[in-house]
């Protein structure tokens, strides 16, 4: 099913000309209303009316997360506050939160994109959508909520936390679609097992999971343990919130990014050079319909590639491959780039090993050390020391084979690695900054 047949299947040439027109309008608007962008254009010696085609996009300088912080809280807003109907903010774990404002039309567009996303994921008006994304400053809860209502589904505004109650509601209300982070869906399965509930037997059939990077292996595990189709959704508050991109249930391979609202580019994070379709690099997004806080060439820090091949679902909007990490999640250990998701894929390849892990990085003299804590479970446990030691060595070897760095595996008791009800904390970096 397709929510907006006309726009979601627009021919490529029509998308391109719509993008060029909307890009130019956005550039002119921000140049006139946002001092930051005026300076950016002037520094580049370039005027918005010189944008003649999409090719001119590359002449616009990048916008960084730091620019949002420098203009905290409202400096990047392109509309006066009396036209802003909603304000969200990021969690601000690494500094001041980044603040975004939405006009009425922005909310309508967001709702439209979330509606498209739900339908692409296989949801419809007959569904009971159990929304376990946090409601509040975080965009997840409300963003998903509006889209769910728009398609006419019954939405349960659960928000995060209180897992036992989540399960009770799921059972009693007959939830069919779950929206939350991938790690939380597994956590719910664990709590269900403890409570003697077979979560696979509930009416849940689809999970729309996002807000943290995950892997294909984790998808298999979730599909198996929770008994749902697990669909990847992408979004970030700086650009919109959830619903920037979604996998279709037909292919479950790559996230369609709504190209009538956004222009995606992939760049080399070190040089800023634009990379061709198919090459992996940092995702850069320009918003071309946003009014409250338009973003030109925003560096998302997410690592992905563009899949340009047509999709079997019929949508013409190109796909982003599953996010494989963030440039700022990337650890540099002894000069090697390491993404937590790579460690995760190693663990999931080893029979019986749980996907719960923490990476602990220390500096011993001048040398970085990596410890990976992995939970023992009934399947991997043995009464013989040598069996457990060989499990550790196997993991160490697999990580060494993949990443070329040696690490130390520390087996820990089950359920001792903190479970997150929001975004999972996978890295503890104790090195001096």
């Amino acid at each position, binding site marked *: 099913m397709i929510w907006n047949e006309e726009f979601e299947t627009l021919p490529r040439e029509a998308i391109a000309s719509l993008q060029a027109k909307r890009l130019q309008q956005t550039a002119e608007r921000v140049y006139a209303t946002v001092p930051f962008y005026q300076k950016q254009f002037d520094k580049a010696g370039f005027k918005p009316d010189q944008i003649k085609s999409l090719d001119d996009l590359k002449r616009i300088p990048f916008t960084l997360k730091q620019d949002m912080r420098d203009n905290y809280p409202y400096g990047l807003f392109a509309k006066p506050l009396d036209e802003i109907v909603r304000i969200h903010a990021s969690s601000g774990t690494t500094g001041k939160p980044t603040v975004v404002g939405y006009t009425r039309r922005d909310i309508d567009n967001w709702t439209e994109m979330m509606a498209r996303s739900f339908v692409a994921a296989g949801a419809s008006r007959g569904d009971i959508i159990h929304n376990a994304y946090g409601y509040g400053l975080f965009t997840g809860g409300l963003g998903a909520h509006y889209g769910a209502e728009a398609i006419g589904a019954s939405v349960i505004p659960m928000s995060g936390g209180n897992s036992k109650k989540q399960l009770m509601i799921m059972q009693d209300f007959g939830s069919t679609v779950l929206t939350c982070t991938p790690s939380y869906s597994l956590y719910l399965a664990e709590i269900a097992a403890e409570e003697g509930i077979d979560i696979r037997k509930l009416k849940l059939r689809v999970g729309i999971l996002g807000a943290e990077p995950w892997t294909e292996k984790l998808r298999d595990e979730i599909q198996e343990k929770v008994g749902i189709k697990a669909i990847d959704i992408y979004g970030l508050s700086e650009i919109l919130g959830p619903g920037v991109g979604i996998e279709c249930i037909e292919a479950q391979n790559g996230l369609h990014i709504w190209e009538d609202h956004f222009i995606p580019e992939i760049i080399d994070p070190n040089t800023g050079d634009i990379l061709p379709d198919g090459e992996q690099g940092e995702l850069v997004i320009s918003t071309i319909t946003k009014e409250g806080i338009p973003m030109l060439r925003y560096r998302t820090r997410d690592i992905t590639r563009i899949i340009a091949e047509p999709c079997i679902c019929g949508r013409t909007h190109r796909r982003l491959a599953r996010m494989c990490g963030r440039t700022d999640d990337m650890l540099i250990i002894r000069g090697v780039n390491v993404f937590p998701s790579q460690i995760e894929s190693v663990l999931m390849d080893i029979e019986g090993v749980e996907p719960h892990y923490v990476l602990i990085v220390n500096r011993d003299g001048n040398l970085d050390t990596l410890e990976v804590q992995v939970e*023992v*479970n*009934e399947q991997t*446990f*043995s*009464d*013989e*020391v040598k069996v*457990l*030691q060989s499990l550790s060595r196997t993991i160490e070897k697999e990580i060494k084979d993949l990443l070329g760095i040696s690490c130390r595996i*520390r*087996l*820990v*008791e*089950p*359920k*001792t690695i903190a479970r997150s009800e929001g975004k999972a904390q996978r890295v503890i970096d104790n090195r001096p900054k």
Partner: protein
Amino acid sequence: MKVQQISIFIENKSGRLAEVARVLGEKGVNIRALSLADTSDFGILRLIVDNTDVAKDILKASGFTVSKTEVVAVEVPDQPGGLSSILGVLDEAKVNVEYMYAFVERNAGNAVIIFRFDETDDAIKVLQQKGISILPGDHIYGL
């Protein structure tokens, strides 16, 4: 001829061993024999208790990873050369011992050696052929 043993994964941090003992004590489970294998990161506590299934269930409910294994209890006279004779028999028959531990019976004055073999049934056959006294599980649980 086999004895049920439970093994518990114990992270190497303070209080974990005490926690196992507390949980078992509270539910009135009596420990007959124990051994702890330890590495720098973790230990494996092996126990023979008076009620294996109850012990396993309550430890699992307390969040421990527990497994059940079959071991063999052999009785030898508590005197010099007692252990040596048994090991000689096993060695001759090329029976591999994964690990073992021992204790002395209170009344009988005999030593009891608990063996974990990789081929338990073969090992029992060898011991029986040599007339070595194997203690049944119930004997150990009820000590």
